[in-house]
């Protein structure tokens, strides 16, 4: 209601000159405002980290960096982190691709179950897998004992396995999205022309998917190296940067060194972000980004099908088992130690409060994030001012920034007046808004590219003010993008730990932090039950949102065809 009212008031209270000026410049004013927001909530915290890493008690110093680069330990940590990131990214991409391929091209009966299994862990905190793995494969785990195995879960391997399982869903979701929007006729044409399944994959599917794969790779890499839950629980003596940073800040209260580690953690992410942008330059194929279509199953030759089936079965099986363990564990005080089934884990009041808080934070973040995302997209596409690309890059860079670093940045930047924000819900929500902004912005941009500027001009022709046009024409058309940004922010925010763990305040527990604490404290039952509750509630939220989205998708396309 507000914008329309505002425009009415403007028209009523001021002369037409001012109105014209505003109409002509509103988009620039809006852009400036948005840029200030980005600068304040995204750039400034990162710069605060950078400054902290360079400023000692007596002014500027490179001492902390020297200390980093002179210690083998940190190199080891950096090396492990990068290796973990690379292995994880590659494995997640391969598995995610196989899963996505099966659920979009495979036999009908497999599609739904595989999809559900692949997506459910998305709403569970990533470090959940560390818990399951200890229960099953720890040195005294159920499976270990059963087969009298002697393996070492604590260390690099354990972290890789748990981290991979944790990020398969994300990889799957992103790849499935691009596969869905890949016109199936392209592959069918190749098929028709005599290409075998493998040839189609090699010459058509994968090259066309490359931009999507690249993006998924970037995201997974960044999230992997920033997520410290699994490494903290299963890392053993193997150092990784993210948990080291966490310890450095929370344990040793060494903000300078913590900032150095953060900057080092950020460096590869930024480099990859730029490589990604560079590679995608001029590679935006027109066929991608169309409306999602379900492809009919193909008669895949067994030879090709075999590896796909093996990989998907193993991956889906592993995810399923880990999840089943969590489910079972939620009914025991401590699974594997005590033997009577209890419901007390579910009745834990403090975890209910935490879940409620998480949903509140995520909801607020999602609404604000989606809204800002749509506005940013609008400004980026329709604006004609200098620095548009810069704004675009900054708003998309959020997801390339490790959560740990942004969390520390917020702690450094906003814990003292005049910018004191710590404590309460807003800092948590804002943190999520700006970290997860990219998806909403991108969806908005692609939506805006689909609609004709003439519709807006026609509306302006009819005498509508900028605000009215924006409100009546642009927003409804961009509603799907709004929903996309909303859903992504909501889902990611609700399980994210790496940043918010630095920002939670007394009286405002979040579910992800609560689960992590319970896990670290050995309260397996409570950790599991809280997770199950979270999964259930978020699933319900998602179903509702999906329902809304399906409705708006229909509505959106109707409006579009009516307008043309």
């Amino acid at each position, binding site marked *: 209601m507000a914008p329309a009212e505002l425009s009415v008031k403007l028209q009523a209270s001021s002369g037409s000159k001012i109105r014209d000026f505003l109409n002509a410049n509103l988009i620039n004013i809006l852009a400036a405002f948005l840029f200030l927001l980005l600068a304040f909530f995204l750039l400034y915290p990162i710069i605060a980290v950078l400054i902290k890493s360079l400023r000692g008690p007596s002014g500027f110093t490179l001492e902390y960096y020297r200390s980093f680069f002179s210690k083998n*330990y940190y190199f080891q940590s950096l090396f492990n982190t990068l290796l973990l990131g690379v292995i994880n990214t590659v494995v997640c991409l391969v598995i995610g691709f196989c899963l996505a391929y099966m659920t979009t091209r495979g036999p009908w009966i497999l599609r739904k179950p595989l999809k559900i299994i692949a997506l459910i862990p998305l709403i569970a905190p990533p470090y959940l897998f560390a818990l399951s793995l200890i229960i099953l494969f720890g040195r005294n785990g159920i499976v270990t004992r059963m087969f009298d195995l002697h393996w070492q879960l604590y260390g690099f391997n354990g972290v890789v396995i748990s981290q991979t399982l944790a990020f398969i869903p994300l990889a799957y979701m992103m790849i499935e999205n691009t596969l869905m929007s890949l016109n199936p006729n392209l592959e069918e044409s190749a098929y028709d022309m005599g290409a075998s399944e493998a040839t189609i994959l090699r010459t058509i599917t994968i090259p066309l998917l490359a931009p999507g794969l690249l993006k998924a790779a970037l995201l997974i890499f960044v999230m992997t190296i920033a997520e410290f839950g699994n490494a903290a629980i299963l*890392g053993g003596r193997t150092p990784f940067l993210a948990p080291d940073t966490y*310890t450095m800040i929370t344990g040793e209260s060494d903000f300078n060194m913590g900032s150095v580690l953060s900057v080092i953690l950020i460096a590869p992410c930024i480099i990859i972000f730029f490589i990604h942008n560079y590679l995608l330059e001029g590679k935006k194929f027109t066929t991608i980004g169309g409306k999602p279509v379900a492809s009919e199953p193909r008669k895949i030759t067994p030879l090709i099908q075999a590896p796909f089936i093996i990989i998907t079965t193993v991956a889906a099986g592993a995810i399923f088992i880990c999840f089943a363990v969590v489910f079972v564990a939620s009914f025991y005080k401590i699974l594997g130690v005590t033997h009577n089934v209890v419901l007390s884990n579910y009745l834990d009041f403090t975890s209910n409060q935490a879940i409620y808080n998480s949903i509140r934070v995520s909801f607020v973040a999602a609404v604000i994030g989606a809204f800002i995302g749509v506005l940013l997209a609008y400004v980026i596409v329709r604006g004609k001012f200098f620095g548009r690309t810069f704004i675009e890059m900054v708003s998309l860079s959020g997801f390339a920034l490790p959560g740990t670093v942004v969390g520390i940045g917020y702690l450094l930047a906003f814990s*003292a007046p005049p910018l004191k924000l710590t404590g309460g819900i807003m800092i948590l929500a804002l943190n999520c808004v700006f970290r997860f902004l990219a998806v909403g912005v991108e969806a908005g941009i692609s939506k805006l590219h689909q609609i004709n500027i003439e519709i807006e001009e026609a509306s302006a022709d009819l005498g509508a003010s900028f605000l009215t046009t924006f409100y009546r024409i642009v927003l409804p058309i961009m509603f799907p993008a709004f929903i996309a940004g909303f859903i992504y922010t909501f889902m990611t925010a609700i399980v994210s730990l790496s940043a918010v763990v630095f920002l939670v305040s007394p009286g405002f527990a979040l579910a992800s932090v609560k689960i992590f604490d319970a896990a670290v404290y050995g309260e397996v039952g409570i950790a599991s039950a809280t997770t199950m509750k979270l999964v259930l509630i978020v699933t319900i939220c998602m179903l509702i949102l999906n329902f809304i989205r399906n409705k708006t998708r229909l509505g959106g396309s109707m409006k579009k065809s009516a307008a043309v």
Partner: protein
Amino acid sequence: MKRKPIAFVVAAIFSLVLAGSTPAEDINAYMGTSPDNNAKIAKFIKDKTGITVNQTFQSFGEIEARAKAEAPNFNADMIIGCGSPLAFMAKKSGWSHPYVSPAWKGVAEVFMDPQGDWYNIANFSFVLVGSKDRLAKAGYSMPTSWKDLLDPKWKGEILMPSPLSSGTANMMRFSFLALYGDDEGWKFLEALDKNIAYYTRSGNAPTDLVGRGEFMLGITSDENVKKRIDDGYPLIWSIPNEGTGYDGTYALIFKGTKKLAACKKIIDVLGTPEFSTLMAEIGYVTPRPAPNALYGKTLPKYIKLDLAKAADDKPKNNDIWKQKLRTDFK
């Protein structure tokens, strides 16, 4: 028509944001005992004073980092449960609001600062835990001296928390340094390191992992041991001959709080014998003597400590720790 949803959404955001604002009689506190025990303490305070304590669980280390980052504008009104390094630093830096509580009269000097800058609501220690099943299977018995832990047969089977992330582990370190003297102490820690599987992040973690049988032995906080045994973990615990160290669980009021009266009220109830009984039942050693859940009536043998010095030495010892015990930290 179209406007309604947005108005609704705006309203929804506001209501959600505002839902965070809190009722009249409440304070924000950093609380560093386990989530469970935090809840018990908060409930006790609520029952006795009607004041709601808003808190999230944070480790001693986290609270320390948080307080340092926020000083002198704290997000909380007080701390109920932090380690000695922060308590002493707060007094030194003038972050704490002195208040001499009449309710605390007569407690031993380790439990209360003469100026009333901090109060030690409960002492905790560290103990040795062992996995009943794993020890039996290997045919080993519980070590009776800390030095027994250096036996190569324990290689890869001992857990202990890292002093870099855990206040409990810091206590272990300064206790061993006090017990053996600095030189011998470091040698002991270095030798012990050869047998340590890895250093856990939290001070309680060894209890759980040894309880699960993942490792045979753990040097761990005594806080959770009783509860875990009650939960059904096949655990045995002991305190080797040399005794154990201790550290306090400190409460203090932050300077600048707007709810000074409520904070004082809380400090007062924390000094009552009833509160001591509650903490003793959990397993703490308390300012007002009460039967202890873990140790019973006879308190364990303590290593002689200077907590103030320990707090001062912490940064230095962290550096030495990294130099000596991270083999690749060169």
